C-alpha cells in the first residue's frame, strides 16, 4: 500500500483578501521506504509543498492521504506519530542538551508531564547511535557545529519514531563532507529502517546519486520518477529556465554554456 497518496492537490496561501496559488493539480503516490529528493529552483514552492504535506499549513484543495487515511482526519498527536520534521528555522535560545533536545521527540508518547520511560530513553539512545552522535549527548546544543546540529535534529525526528520524515533543505549550511554524510545517512535510514524520507534540496548531484525517486518541481507541475529515467528523458533540463545553463547527461550536473 502507498504510504502517501496525493490527488489533485492545490497548494498556496489564502487570506481573507486573496488567495495565492503556488501549484495546482499535484498527483503523487509514494511507497514506504522510499528516499525522495524534491528539486526545484528557489521560490518555486518546495517548502510550501512540504509544509502542506506535513499539515504545518492548510492545503487549498485536493486530497492528501497518509497510510490510506485523509490527512485532516488525524488528531495532532496521531499525526505526530506519523510524520517527523526537520525544519530550516533557527532554534530559539535555550539551555537544552543534545539528549534533552532529542528526547523532546518522544513527547507524543510520554505522559502528561513528559516523564521519559525506559523505552523512551532507549529510543533516544538508538537515534543517537544511528547518527553517530552519542558522544555529544550531554553537550548544549548551541555548542555544536552546524553539521553536528543537523545530525541532532535528524536524531530528534528519528526518536519521534515516525514512518515518514520530511526535511526542508537539511544541508543548506553544511560543508561538502557533512552534505555527503547527511545524504548517505538519509539513504541508509530509508533502506535499513524502511523510513520514507522526503528531502527538499539544491544538491542535484547528490540527489541523483542517492535518491530512489526525484520530484522535480517546475512552474506548472511536479515531474516524478527515478533519477535515471528522468535524466534519459531530459526532464532535468526543465528545472531551470535560464538560457545560460544546461544539464549534461554524462557528467550528471548542470554546466554553464
Amino acid at each position, binding site marked *: 500500500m502507498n504510504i502517501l497518496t496525493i490527488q489533485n492537490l492545490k497548494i498556496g496561501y489564502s487570506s481573507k483578501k486573496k488567495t495565492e496559488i503556488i501549484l495546482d493539480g499535484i498527483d503523487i503516490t509514494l511507497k514506504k521506504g522510499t528516499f525522495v529528493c524534491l528539486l526545484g529552483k528557489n521560490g518555486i514552492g518546495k517548502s510550501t509543498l512540504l509544509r502542506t504535506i506535513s499539515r504545518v499549513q492548510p492545503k487549498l484543495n485536493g486530497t492528501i492521504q497518509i497510510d490510506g487515511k485523509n490527512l485532516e482526519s488525524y488528531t*495532532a498527536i496521531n499525526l505526530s*506519530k506519523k510524520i*517527523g520534521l526537520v*525544519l530550516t528555522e533557527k532554534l530559539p535560545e535555550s539551555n537544552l542538551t543534545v539528549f534533552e533536545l532529542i*528526547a523532546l*521527540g518522544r513527547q507524543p508518547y510520554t505522559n502528561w508531564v513528559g516523564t*521519559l520511560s525506559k523505552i523512551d530513553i532507549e529510543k533516544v539512545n538508538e537515534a543517537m547511535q544511528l547518527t553517530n552522535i552519542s558522544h555529544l*549527548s550531554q553537550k548544549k546544543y548551541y555548542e555544536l557545529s552546524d553539521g553536528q546540529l543537523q545530525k541532532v535534529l535528524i536524531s530528534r525526528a528519528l526518536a519521534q519514531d515516525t514512518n515518514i520524515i520530511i526535511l526542508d533543505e537539511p544541508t543548506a549550511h553544511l560543508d561538502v563532507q557533512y552534505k555527503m554524510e547527511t545524504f548517505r545517512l538519509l539513504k541508509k535510514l530509508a533502506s535499513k529502517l524502511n523510513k520514507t524520507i522526503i528531502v527538499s534540496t539544491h544538491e542535484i548531484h547528490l540527489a541523483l546519486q542517492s535518491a530512489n525517486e526525484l520530484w522535480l518541481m517546475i512552474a506548472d507541475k511536479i515531474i516524478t520518477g527515478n533519477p535515471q529515467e528522468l535524466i534519459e528523458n531530459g526532464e532535468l533540463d526543465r528545472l531551470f529556465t535560464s538560457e545560460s545553463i544546461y544539464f549534461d547527461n554524462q557528467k550528471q550536473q548542470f554546466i554553464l554554456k
Partner: protein
Amino acid sequence: MTPQKSYKTTFFILLILLVFIWFLNISLGSVSIPFKEIFAAILNEEVSKNAWKSIIIDYRIPKAITAILVGSGLSISGLLMQTLFRNPLAGPFVLGISSGASLGVAILILGSTLIGGISAFAFSSFSMAIAASLGAFLVLSAVLIAANSVRNTMSILIIGLMFGSITSAIISVLAYFSSAEQLQQFIFWGFGSLGNLSWNELAIFGFIFSIGIIFLVFIIKPLNSMLLGENYAKSLGVNIKKTRNIVLITTSILTGVITAFSGPIAFVGLAVPHLTKIVFNTSNHKILIPAVGLVGAILMLIADMIAQLPTSEFTLPINAITSLFGAPIVIWLLIRKNKIY
C-alpha cells in the same frame, strides 16, 4: 547514560535556605524581639509581651508569606513570558503587563469619581484583584496579538514598552481628574508594599494565586516543546493556541493578583529566571518552574529585609529595592552572558 539531572540536592538546599530566611525575615523589624519569643509566637505559646505576639502574628508573618507569594509568582510569570515570547528579556514588567494591572487598579481607585456609585465596593481587595487581573489580561492579549504579526524579538519588547506607555498615559489622565485623597491612595499603592495585608486578604490572595499555579501543571510538557519553536512543537502534537491561552491566563492571574495586593513590583519577573538558570543549568520546565518559584521567594524575602532597614523605624518602598538591585543585575547579566540578545 544519565539522561537528565534532577537537581534534588539543590532543591533541598534552597528549601532549607527559604525556611531559614523566612525565620530571619520575621525576626527582623523596627521592634527587636528575642528569638525565643518569636518561636513561642509561631508555635502559638505564651509570649511575654502581648504586643510582640500581635506584631509577629498579625504583621510580620502575613508580610513574609506575602513576600513568598509575590516573589515566586512574579518570577514564574517572567519565566513563562520568556518561553512564550522566545525572548530572554521578556517579563511581566517589560511587556507592560504590570502596567496593565496598574491600569485596572487605577480605574478602580481613581475612576470611581467618574463612574460613581461603586466606590464602596471598589476598594474591597477582591475587586482590586479582579480589576488588576483584567487589566493584565487586556494588555497581555494586545501584546500577544501584536507579537504574532512581528517575528523580530526586539520589536516585541518595544511593543510591550509602548503598551506600558499607553497605560501610563491613561493613568495620568485619570490622576488629573482625581481628588487629592484618591491620588495619595493610588501613589502609595504604586510604591509597592508587602505589608498591611490582613489574614483575610491573605487568604483571598493565596486562593487566587493557587488557581493560577494549578494551571501551570498542565503546560509543563507543551512549554518544553516550545523550546524548539512553534512549528516543531506543532509537529509534536502540541496545541499551540491552547498552550498560549493557558500561559496568558496564568500570567494574568498571577501578575494581576500580585499587583493588586502589593503594587507594581519591577524587575523580579525579569531577573529571577536568569539568576535561577545560573544555578539550574537547564531549560526543562519541570525543574525550572519550581526552581524559579523558590529562588524568587527567597530573593523577595531578602529584598523585604533590606526594605525594612533593620532596627530603624522606616520602611522603604519595596519597588525601590527591587529596582535598585534588579536593574544592575539585569545589566550585569546582559554583559556577562553575551549570548543574550
